[in-house]
């Protein structure tokens, strides 16, 4: 781990969760360039001047914001620095941080802004010891999560994953470091099978991040459906029937109306998409911009259909998204019994509820259905879930390296090549668990195989 001042880093600088305002900071050579690509305003950004404008990512408008630009060396870090103040919603912050990363920034390590400030001489000597302590304690907490210090089931699962990778690497290294006469060669197919098995485990953990995030930030529930199906009525019905959590910043964007309700242990963030159907990119033409983004970001998608207007072809959704969908068959008060039973048949096998948003019937069934769906997500994550983005990113990268090693093995590359990707996967896992050394691999080899003449 080295101090690399060249890269541009981005991070949320205010505490996570909901708040009146949130500040995202960018620091490094490319900060200015990155914000120029994301921020539109009538005024030019100028050193130390707070400018009001709008943030956009490649999918479109995100939020209004106040952006202040500090030119190096006159900034906190001593580098080009940008402070973005926007509404305090984790959802929006995620969007803007992701957008900055897409423009070339990387996520900042704990204490990295302060570290850069120190290294660029922005702090005096008496503060230096304190800085070291800050960095020390920040990465220390990451470290307690490492090398067997991770407690509970999460630690167990992660270290099982790691030792499975170490085993695979050992088998390959064994073949490279000991003569053929002494050992048995494991067939490539078997190696590939083992890698795929580990990879699947990692994937399950990655998926559990969604549940972890839900616990922290609330369940994102976009309400979608054809025009006049009753999205807004349903939205209002929820607010009437359930306990509303007053969010300090109602309506995080002008396009969506968002309110939070609490049901059981969960906070559901209802997003009324009614407002966007009038624009070009309505939900019906799914595949574009905001709507698509909402479908992806949503944890539960409430798909509202007016049963009296039920057409044979309901919007085609990808498998990934349709797993998240709950169908709300609205205006059941107007429907005749035979229609109801016909609709029931049509939606058999899919989670669906009848309701009348107008007369507030069936709302509790829907909310308890939403809780059920979240509970299922929890079960899928084997009661273990990851809550830190850092862990998710490490697992994501580990999985990518594993996939590369599978490709490599499939292409019949020699073992010392396959091992490069596998070792990279170990390095990635090392970000959670502490690094795997050559000695660890050799120890594993010696304890499992009888080698040496």
């Amino acid at each position, binding site marked *: 781990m080295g101090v690399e001042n060249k890269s541009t880093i981005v991070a949320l600088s205010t505490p996570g969760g909901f708040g009146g305002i949130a500040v995202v900071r960018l620091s490094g050579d490319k900060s200015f360039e990155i914000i120029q690509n994301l921020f539109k305003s009538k005024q030019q950004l100028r050193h130390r001047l707070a400018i009001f404008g709008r943030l956009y990512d490649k999918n479109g408008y995100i939020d209004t914001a106040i952006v202040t630009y500090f030119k190096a060396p006159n900034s906190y870090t001593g580098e080009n620095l940008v402070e973005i103040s926007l509404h305090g919603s984790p959802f929006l912050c995620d969007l803007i941080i992701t957008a900055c990363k897409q423009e070339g920034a990387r996520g900042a390590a704990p204490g990295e802004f302060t570290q850069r400030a120190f290294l660029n001489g922005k702090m005096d*000597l008496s503060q230096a*010891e304190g800085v070291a302590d800050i960095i020390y304690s920040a990465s220390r907490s990451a*470290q307690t999560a490492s090398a067997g210090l991770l407690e509970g089931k999460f630690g167990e699962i992660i270290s099982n994953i790691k030792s499975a990778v170490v085993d695979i690497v050992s088998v390959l290294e064994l073949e490279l*470091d000991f*003569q053929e006469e002494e050992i048995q060669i494991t067939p490539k197919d078997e190696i590939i099978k083992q890698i795929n098995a580990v990879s699947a485990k990692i994937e399950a953990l990655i998926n559990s991040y969604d549940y972890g995030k839900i616990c922290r930030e609330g369940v994102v529930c976009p309400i979608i459906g054809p025009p006049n199906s009753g999205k807004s009525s349903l939205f209002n019905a929820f607010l009437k029937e359930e306990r509303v959590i007053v969010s300090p910043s109602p309506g995080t964007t002008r396009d969506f109306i968002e309110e939070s309700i609490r049901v059981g242990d969960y906070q559901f963030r209802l997003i009324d998409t009614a407002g966007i159907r009038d624009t070009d990119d309505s939900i019906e033409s799914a595949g574009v911009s905001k709507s698509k983004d909402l479908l992806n970001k949503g944890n539960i998608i409430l798909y509202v259909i007016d049963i009296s207007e039920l057409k044979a072809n309901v919007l085609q959704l990808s498998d990934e998204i349709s797993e998240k969908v709950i169908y709300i068959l609205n205006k059941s008060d107007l429907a005749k019994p035979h229609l109801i039973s016909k609709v029931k048949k049509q939606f058999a096998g899919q989670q669906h509820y009848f309701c009348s948003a107008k007369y507030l019937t069936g709302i509790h069934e829907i909310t308890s259905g939403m809780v059920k769906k979240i509970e299922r997500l929890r079960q899928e994550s084997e009661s273990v879930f990851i809550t830190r983005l850092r862990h998710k990113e490490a697992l994501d990268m580990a999985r990518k390296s594993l996939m590369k090693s599978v490709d490599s093995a499939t292409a019949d590359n*020699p*073992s010392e090549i396959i091992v*490069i990707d596998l070792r990279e996967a170990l390095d990635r896992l090392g970000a959670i668990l502490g690094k795997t050394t050559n000695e660890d691999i050799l120890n594993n080899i*010696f304890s499992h195989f009888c080698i040496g*003449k």
Partner: protein
Amino acid sequence: MKHAFENIVVGGGHAGVEAALVSARMDINTLLITMEKTAIARMSCNPAIGGLAKGHLVAEIDALGGEMAKVIDITGIQFKMLNRSKGRAVWSPRAQADKNQYSLEIQKRVMNQDNLSVIEDIATKIVVENSRIVAVETINHGSIPCKTAIITAGTFLNGLIHIGMDQFSGGRLDEKSAVGLTESLNKIGIKSGRLKTGTPPRIKADTIDYTKVLPQYGDKDPIPFSFQTERFSPKNIPCYITHTTKTTHEILYRGLDRSPLYSGKIRGVGPRYCPSIEDKIVRFGDRNSHQIFLEPEWENANQVYVNGFSTSLPLDIQLRGLRSIPGLENAEIIKPGYAIEYDYFPSYQLKRTLETKLIGGLFLAGQVNGTSGYEEAAALGLVAGINAALNIREEKPFFLDRSEAYIGVLIDDLITKSPNEPYRMFTSSAEYRLLLRFDNADMRLSHKGHLLGLINDHYFKTANTKRATIKAAINFLESTTVCPADINPILQNQNESTIHSGVLLQKILCRPGFHISALLSFFPADLLSRIRQYKGLDDQIEIDVKYKGYIHRQIKQIDRFKRQESLRIPGSLDYSNIKSITKEAREKLHKFRPETIGQASRIPGVSPSDITSLMILLKR
């Protein structure tokens, strides 16, 4: 006669001879102290040089002007390239040596070397003034002044041999051990520990039933170790394979009560990759059989090395055990197998030049550093010898890092990990393995050897020519488009899918399993003849093209690595006051006293956050 000898090498094993020869060649008046001139470069254990990863070391020693490669090329009696079924990076040569010829050939070179004198004696004490070595005391020649000394005492320091319940002092079987030197080093503050190693029995060749064992020959088309070896047509004398049986294991098991290893008599730590046969049957009890290799110790030898049967069990058990092995029913033992415990000096006490951190001018090399193997020893001897010479000449020290050579990995592992079992080189220890190949050792290192005056102009130029040819060939492959009519017949021939429009040759070569030989006809005649001038160059071109992505990744990693390696830590740094570093890391850093941030980061117990804190302090 003050400083008649500038550099003294104590010990004439594989480390000692490389150290003495290189130091003399660097114009340093050098003295080699050995117990017995005829024992110089004796092969204590198996009659072989090289092996996986070790072959890399030998090639690197060669590219830096050492002797081992050249001498085994002359005296080897069977050559084999190991791992041929794997990728090129892990190919490594191994040769059966004619033990007698090998040491005679080295002795000849030692005796004929200018600036190098040899005496038979035993060093007993290091004389230090102002933290610098000034003399070596010997039994028969008294105190011999020097500017530097290199201790390469192998297993001789307080060597203790075990055979069954018998134990007696010795440096090797039938050779005296060296007493006094360890104590002298301890007195000046250098810590020592105990290690153990072992060797199998030697049996009479004419007592083997060759109808029951399987001959194993070397390569028909052998590749020499040294890039300076030009005419190469070595002998190909076979070894023989047999295996232990259930009966063998039962016999050995019943002897365990008289095993010094299992009765607790041996306290030194032995190498896990070179386990004794009793260790194998105890630790892997489910195995009914272990392979045994019968290796002739020299040409027409009546003495055969029983590889795979290293043991310290009592002689009667050794003999009965051997006789339960197919082909060895009537075997007679010439020398029993034995274990030996000896003193070593934990390697955290060394700089990367192999000079001790404590005493200026005192270098340690070979098994006393806690390594095992002739190749590891020779590599360390070479580096210590070069640095002793540079030290005397008051020139900048010489070292190799992990990205440059296996030798760099070896030394870095020693000084940052300080292993407490005998260290052996593995390819898996080299993170930049793809770049550190046997076949490119000359291209990687001969410019360094040349700079030191240890590689002559001719071979230096050869390495440069090879490098230029590879580059030209890669350029050609990456810029030449081949049309379907020309390449499709070749592709069809190899059951490869054909192409429909022009494709870069490089793309064709990158197809899995496709070999460069099928593309050579596309090269212009002059380039082709340049490629063919050196054996194996086509393969090297292929690796560079096929694995370009991976090679590139390693090169990028090396950039990062080099940055940390270039951050020096002052030797005087007081770690005890650095509060932002964990207590464990403080202790480790104080003990190892790393020379660079890179080294510090590889010390077990020092975490990335400790390194960050350290870097912040150093930036101040």
